[in-house]
């Protein structure tokens, strides 16, 4: 008979060809691009308006000098930090009854004021609900303080010109490097998580076709069930590889094009702890490991479902499981020790994402060899378990052979 690997290759080849050469595969390829493009477009369109709309507006009901000083101070502070950090100020001509005017301004739905500033720089009054104390009150205090200081200096005839800071450029600062590497670790985890999340439904429903059109009987009579499961996993990995190559290629081209437009091709200033080349290889390997681990689990779960309705039912718990695993893996980004960190490294489903973060943060390579072996072992265990469960519950048969016999596995003994 064929070995499990040969048989898995036959299954994988058929699944890969059937998927990649189907019309729906084009949809599969362009869907994430459309989604990404749509998100960018929507973010671009809505961004500015949304940012302005979500910023509090404070009505300045004061004399023109106070208004001018407050606006000047606000602009200086916003320029030095960020425009988003300070409320918008809008001057309103004072009425006779200031209290009544403030009440009327706060009730004006169209203008949308969060608070009203009245009085002078020396006797400022902020009228508004208690909820605005943090986002508006503290900022207005900063603005008033700066305006008062500027006014006092002007009155005293003192000029305080800005002092240029002499810049001494060094290599990476440890703190900065750690921060950037943590960001890199988070991005790598997010990439693995995002792609796996997109493909999880495909994996869940992967055996439904064989069950619904009765091909499973033909397969089970010809090859070990382990080979069927492995073949399907490999095919899906290949299919995701085609997608990743296309999506990644387009993103990389876009990035380079943007860089060329900027007249310079700049590589990121920070490198992961293991270096870019080993990191790229490890990222790929951990993506594969994560895909194979979760894929084996989802394939096993999906194999128990008898129709698409059941698949849909288990989709939500599976998504929640993925999110949970992702959150667990994220714990290693900020810390290096502790029970939760170790658990994230060891727990098979969070381990690939945790280890890719490890590669971004730490130089040592040998733990990756250990981790990848650990992942391979678990893929073997899950596939074997899934195949046996399938045999028991779907085919209503016991499985012969020892669970952990590698020789038997190679020959397809127990599946």
């Amino acid at each position: 008979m064929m070995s499990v690997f040969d048989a898995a290759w036959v299954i994988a080849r058929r699944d890969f060809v059937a998927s990649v050469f189907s019309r729906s595969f084009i949809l599969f390829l362009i869907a994430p691009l459309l989604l990404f493009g749509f998100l960018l477009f929507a973010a671009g369109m809505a961004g500015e308006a949304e940012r302005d709309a979500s910023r509090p507006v404070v009505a300045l009901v004061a004399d023109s000098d106070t208004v001018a000083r407050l606006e000047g101070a606000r602009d200086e502070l916003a320029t030095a930090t960020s425009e988003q950090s300070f409320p918008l100020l809008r001057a309103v001509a004072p009425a006779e009854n200031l209290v009544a005017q403030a009440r009327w301004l706060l009730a004006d739905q169209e203008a949308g004021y969060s608070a009203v500033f009245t009085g002078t720089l020396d006797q400022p009054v902020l009228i508004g609900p208690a909820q605005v104390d943090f986002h508006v009150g503290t900022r207005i205090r900063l603005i008033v303080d700066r305006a008062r200081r500027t006014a006092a200096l002007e009155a005293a005839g003192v000029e305080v010109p800005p002092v240029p800071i002499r810049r001494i450029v060094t290599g990476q600062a440890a703190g900065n490097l750690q921060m950037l590497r943590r960001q890199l670790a988070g991005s790598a985890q997010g990439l693995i998580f995002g792609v796996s999340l997109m493909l999880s439904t495909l994996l869940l429903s992967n055996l439904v076709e064989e069950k619904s059109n009765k091909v499973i009987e033909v397969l089970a009579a010809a090859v070990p069930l382990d080979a069927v499961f492995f073949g399907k996993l490999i095919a899906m990995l290949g299919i995701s590889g085609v997608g990743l190559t296309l999506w990644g290629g387009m993103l990389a081209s876009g990035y380079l094009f943007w860089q060329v437009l900027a007249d310079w091709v700049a590589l990121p200033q920070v490198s992961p702890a293991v270096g870019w080349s080993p990191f790229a290889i490890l990222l790929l390997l951990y993506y594969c490991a994560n895909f194979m681990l979760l894929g084996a689990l989802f394939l096993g779960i999906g194999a128990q479902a008898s129709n698409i309705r059941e698949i849909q039912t288990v989709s939500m718990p599976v998504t929640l499981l993925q999110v949970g695993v992702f959150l667990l893996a994220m714990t290693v980004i900020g810390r290096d020790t502790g029970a939760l960190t170790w658990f994230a490294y060891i727990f098979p489903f969070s381990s690939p994402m945790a280890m890719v973060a490890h590669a971004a943060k730490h130089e040592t390579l040998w733990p990756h060899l250990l981790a990848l072996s650990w992942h391979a072992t678990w893929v073997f265990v899950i596939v074997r378990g899934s195949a046996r469960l399938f045999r028991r519950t779907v085919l209503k048969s016991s499985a012969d052979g020892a669970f952990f016999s590698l020789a038997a596995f190679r020959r397809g003994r127990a599946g």
Partner: protein
Amino acid sequence: MASVLAIEAQGLFKSFDGKPAVQGIDIAIPEGSIYGILGPNGAGKTTTLRMLLGIIEPDGGRRALLGHERPLDAARIVGYLPEERGLYPAMATREAIAFMGALRGLPLDVGRRRAEILLRENGLGDYVDKPIKSLSKGMAQTIQLFGTIVHKPKLVVLDEPFSGLDPINQGRLEHLIREEAAAGTTIIFSTHVIAHAERLCERIAIIVGGRIRFEGLVAEARDRLRPQVRLRTRQAEGSWHSALPADARPVEGVWEFELPGDGIEPLLKVLIAGGAGIEELSIERPGLHDAFVVIAGEAAAREMANGATERAGAAA
């Protein structure tokens, strides 16, 4: 591994959810023979075949397929057509056949070449690149059968191969089975339709309620019944009348009875001497259907006939 038996099973036992489906089945199928498994719905035919092929493991007993205790070890030289046909609808016919061969270790390019030959030789040359979903049910079934034999197996197992086929395709399938058997392939098939087994098989097993009621040559099954004698005489009464066997009964003017143990000659002498005036005398060997009724019982025979009618209706 040399063996004179293509399949050997002893004491196969299988139960589902505590209900026994197969209870101690013993089968010995010589290489090169056409072997039929007969039985009504739920008799345990499919379960037996699936255990023989290793799709499910028996709860008890042992089996060997072409000398291999593990059926998957013989997968390269076995072909299997399941009762519930299974094909990928979007696959082209040639690819489907080649894929089934590849599952049995046949290189894809060889499988494609053989598939094309099989399709053309059987008048399906125009369908080489057509997807399975565009074919009729009978055609799709034929494609799956080609997929079952494309790797030139030594043993072909067909589970209810005639079900769902119209008479023309049934005839084609019978022809194909004979051709394969003539080439030395062992064929084992299960069926509801006794006529197919009677026409094709040398040996049969009759399974009822998960147990084998008969296993042996078709001729041996038929020999369970004495040949039937039909006698029509010109004279209705006479001294010869008392010489008729005790089981003789008149049916529309014809006497019917089992051939006496001492043959027909003594009775003939009496009939001639008594002036019965023999108008018609025939000795008919009982058919497999009659043997089945005796072996499996009236109820099983009725159930089997009903099952066959239902399937024929479904095919129509």
